[in-house]
């Protein structure tokens, strides 16, 4: 059970302010959970510089500089850079995301990779959202899209790996409020198809399901419609990719969700108050998503 928020910015004049706006949303969401928090940021010039790919990793056992050198030595990826953001270390290199990820895994066998891609960095960890926002330097982040999550753990462990967002495919990101009721079976089905899991978290099953559908050629809308058919439980989800921003709720739609839209941005939050600090919210079109309707915005 959790607080979730997402911001898809249309007006490039706001790109430099993405982190500050997202931090405001994240901190308002803290009342819905203080076990853990995380953000996914698209298009930050420091975390995802142009011409490089980015891989985010949890709980790297050495300082960032040393970690970069180890990844450099582990594969042909060009000069690697690394920055630490709390429990997350962000690696960038002028190689494809797959190649960089392989090098990171070779350098640090068994680590948990929390995102990989060309435009997304996922920063997450356990602790109070306010404290984590500082370790992420969230206020300084820039970009065109972001999602945020605060966690009140229901059944799975309070660990950095079990924190949201879950990013299991390139530049994909998913956050969830609610709980799935049949995730164990779907996890077994996905495992039987060769898909590996990082955590015991029910949301990871949702993220892996969506990534699996996308990999098989479905678009985001179709993937989420299939999710609605397959998953029991209560959920509000925000799913983002390198080009899109989508929101969906379960059939009963008990878990809260508010969407606000202006010419400058589209935002989603568990509660209106997370949106109250966004510029121009007074004149936004505000609505609640209908059950099992996929709302998607393309860049």
């Amino acid at each position, binding site marked *: *059970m*959790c*607080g979730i928020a997402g911001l898809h910015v249309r007006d490039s004049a706001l790109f430099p302010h993405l982190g500050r706006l997202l931090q405001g949303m994240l901190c308002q969401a803290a*009342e*819905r*959970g203080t*076990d853990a928090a995380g953000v996914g940021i698209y298009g930050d010039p420091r975390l995802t510089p142009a011409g490089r790919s980015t891989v985010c990793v949890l709980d790297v056992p050495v300082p960032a500089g040393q970690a970069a050198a180890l990844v450099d030595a582990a594969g042909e990826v060009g000069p690697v850079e690394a920055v630490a953001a709390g429990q997350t270390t962000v690696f960038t290199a002028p190689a494809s995301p797959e190649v960089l990820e392989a090098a990171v895994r070779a350098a640090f066998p068994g680590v948990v990779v929390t995102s990989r891609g060309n435009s997304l960095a996922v920063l997450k960890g356990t602790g109070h959202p306010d404290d984590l926002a500082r370790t992420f330097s969230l206020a300084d982040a820039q970009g065109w899209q972001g999602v945020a999550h605060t966690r*009140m*753990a*229901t*059944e799975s462990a309070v660990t950095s790996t079990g924190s949201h967002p879950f990013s299991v495919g390139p530049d994909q990101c998913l956050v969830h*409020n*609610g*709980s799935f009721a049949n995730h164990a079976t779907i996890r077994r089905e996905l495992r039987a198809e060769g898909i590996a899991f990082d955590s015991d978290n029910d949301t990871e099953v949702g993220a892996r399901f969506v990534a699996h559908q996308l990999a098989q050629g479905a678009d985001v809308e179709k993937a989420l419609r299939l999710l609605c058919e397959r998953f029991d439980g*209560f959920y509000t989800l925000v799913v983002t990719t390198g080009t899109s921003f989508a929101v969906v709720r379960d059939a009963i739609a*008990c*878990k*809260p969700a508010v969407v606000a839209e202006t010419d400058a941005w589209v935002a989603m939050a*568990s509660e209106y108050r997370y949106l109250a600090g966004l510029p121009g919210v007074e004149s936004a079109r505000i609505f609640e998503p209908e059950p099992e309707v996929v709302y998607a915005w393309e860049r």
Partner: protein
Amino acid sequence: MNDFASQGLRESATFDRTTIAAIQHAARTGIYDIRGGGAKRELPHFDDLLFLGASMSRYPLEGYRERCDTDVVLGARNAKFPLHLSTPVTIAGMSFGALSGRAKEALGRGASEVGTSTTTGDGGMTEEERGQSKHLVYQYLPSRYGMNPDHLRAADAIEVVLGQGAKPGGGGMLLGQKITERVAGMRTLPVGVDQRSACRHPDWTGPDDLAIKIAELREITDWEKPVYVKVGASRPYYDVKLAVKAGADVVVVDGMQGGTAATQDVFIEHVGIPTLAAIPQAVQALQEMGVHREVQLIVSGGVRNGADLAKCMALGADAVAIGTAALIALGDNDPALDAEYRALGSAAGYYDDWQAGRDPAGITTQDPELQQRLDPVAAGHRLANYLRVMTMEAQIIARACGKAHLQHLEPEDLVALTVEAAAMARLPLAGTSWVPGRAGAGL
């Protein structure tokens, strides 16, 4: 005894006579069996635990002379006015509607006589109960039947009910026979309908929303009253943690032996976990969060005597709640009424048709004539006697274990008689140091 056996006939263990009767009932009526009470099947229970009285390695306390306190403070975490009870045996939530007004009055009288609390139930607060109960806990339920802010403010504590042990995940039910004019009026229902209650609250879902709901209840009552959260035992480790995260001052965990006024038999017998299995999970959750004893744990579901009370306390509970046992103390299933129970197709000791409203003891009924059979003063006094006996029994055990307060009992004072109970209660099997599932046992 068994004449059939000598003739070579054999009853099936799978299709025993109870099972055969149930199949025949379903085939005849097209409806599942609805009844009152809790799980009747045999379950690992408190009888499977024993205390280790003191002798040489520890010293016992002298009965009657040396102090062994029994009081408990509930809900001091946030409330301006926490409850301070003389005994840790409280009366569980039972509705006016399920019970007669005189039964509610008797519960109030008995509980007040010994300085403990009673609890309302679905359908709101009655004059009988508020008038007689020194400490009254007001239940806040999914149906909100009779929910009234004046009553909220008149209560001594608020119990947000998510579920009960007899039916975790299920809603409430009160059959038409008991929806008399007064009950219907309190619940805003037509007289005589089968009243169904929702299984989820209408305006919030999940622990994150619950945190906001608890804040609302506190705001309305100006942060004066403790807020309890009651769950039916199924995943108590998670549920207790979430109740605490949502802001509960007290968590009530009701095991599957806990009773109900009316629910499907299949629900009562097959959903939830035994009380014994629930307590260690709940205590572990509180301990991991560092709030054991700061957020109090009330355990209910099949608590019958002072030994059960002492065992709950030793396993880490702060108090217990009794429902079925309290009704028996009032006069439910009295052998003196056996002929009348038989006339209803039951017998004293078997009667569980609390849903039917024809209780000859005048307790689980709204029938004006049957109600008159219960003398609330005498019944209240019987309940008080019983509560005193339970408390004294627990003190006897606590003193034998060398404890100056019931709360000082600890798991190390207990052993288990069966492997099942040892595993569930996380205690060593008697005479050994073996705790099932735990590595590295010493001695």
